[in-house]
């Protein structure tokens, strides 16, 4: 395998030196690269849940709080990493906001669910972000769904004000 790697390196070197003086060679090299990208995209497909959304105009989730400044809610498309999802049904997931906090994502009208093993996956969600107060009973229910121990569930005694998100569509990135 290493011999092949070295041979490929040599071919690339020749192309690189030639491309300094040969526009045609540069074009050929570019075509070759795009084919590789296409092949890669074909082998790793995204997973779509709910409405089939696209990746245009995505905002990094760490910018959400700045976007929500002075607003109760905001319609937005966010990208970020999923920390966990509901273990019972996949009816919610939690995304890392990049500041030590998590954003709970639920799905419009309970209309679709997501996989239960999403921890560490990159995701894009489109919908409405809003600040909400989650009561103790609901927080205990979420903890139970997440597979937390009875001790951890019993430790929940205070309501929580947090950023929540109702998604119309979700992409789990490959």
């Amino acid at each position, binding site marked *: 395998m290493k011999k092949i790697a070295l041979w490929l390196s040599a071919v690339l070197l020749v192309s690189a030196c030639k491309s300094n003086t040969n526009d045609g060679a540069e074009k050929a090299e570019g075509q070759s690269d795009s084919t590789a990208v296409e092949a890669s995209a074909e082998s790793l497909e995204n997973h779509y849940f709910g409405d089939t959304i696209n990746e245009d105009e995505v905002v990094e989730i760490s910018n959400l709080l700045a976007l929500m400044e002075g607003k109760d809610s905001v319609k937005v498309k966010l990208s970020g990493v999923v920390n966990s999802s509901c273990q019972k049904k996949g009816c919610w997931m939690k995304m890392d906001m990049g500041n030590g906090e998590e954003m709970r994502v*639920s799905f419009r009208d309970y209309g679709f669910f997501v996989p239960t093993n999403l921890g560490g996956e990159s995701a894009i969600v489109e919908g409405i972000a809003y600040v909400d107060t989650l009561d103790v009973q609901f927080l205990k229910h979420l903890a139970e769904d997440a597979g937390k121990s009875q001790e951890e569930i019993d430790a929940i005694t205070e309501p929580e004000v947090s950023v929540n998100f109702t998604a119309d569509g979700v992409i789990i990135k490959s």
Partner: protein
Amino acid sequence: MSCQQNSEVMAEEAKAQTELKEEPKEEKTLKMKEASELALLMRSMYEENLEIRKGIMEGEIPKSFPEDFVKIHSAQSNENLNETFYALAEQYTANLEAITAAKTKEEGIKAYNGMVNTCASCHTIYCQGPLPKIKKMRIPAPGES
């Protein structure tokens, strides 16, 4: 930097790239949870109840309700159900019977909304996820939005 030096750097980069390509990202198999018998029944009841709602709003009181609805007392669930659930399930079937016993559209609306309230009460305890959807099932009173 000469072309040869440049070439050496590029050779190292190409080698590194090739080695990276030799270890492609292993795609994780995403696991979807299969819906429980109770979850499937609830989805079916939701659709059927929307039909009942439509009928009542047009002044048509149903003479009966689908037999499958009584499976609520026995369907397998992912939730830890207790006697409170079964008491609310009894209340739910009583609500359905009240709908079929209604003599007027107004009585039908009252009985139907009573059923929706029972659904909401149960979901407040066991699974709050569908609550916004359930609340939309209510038939608004005249002047109510």
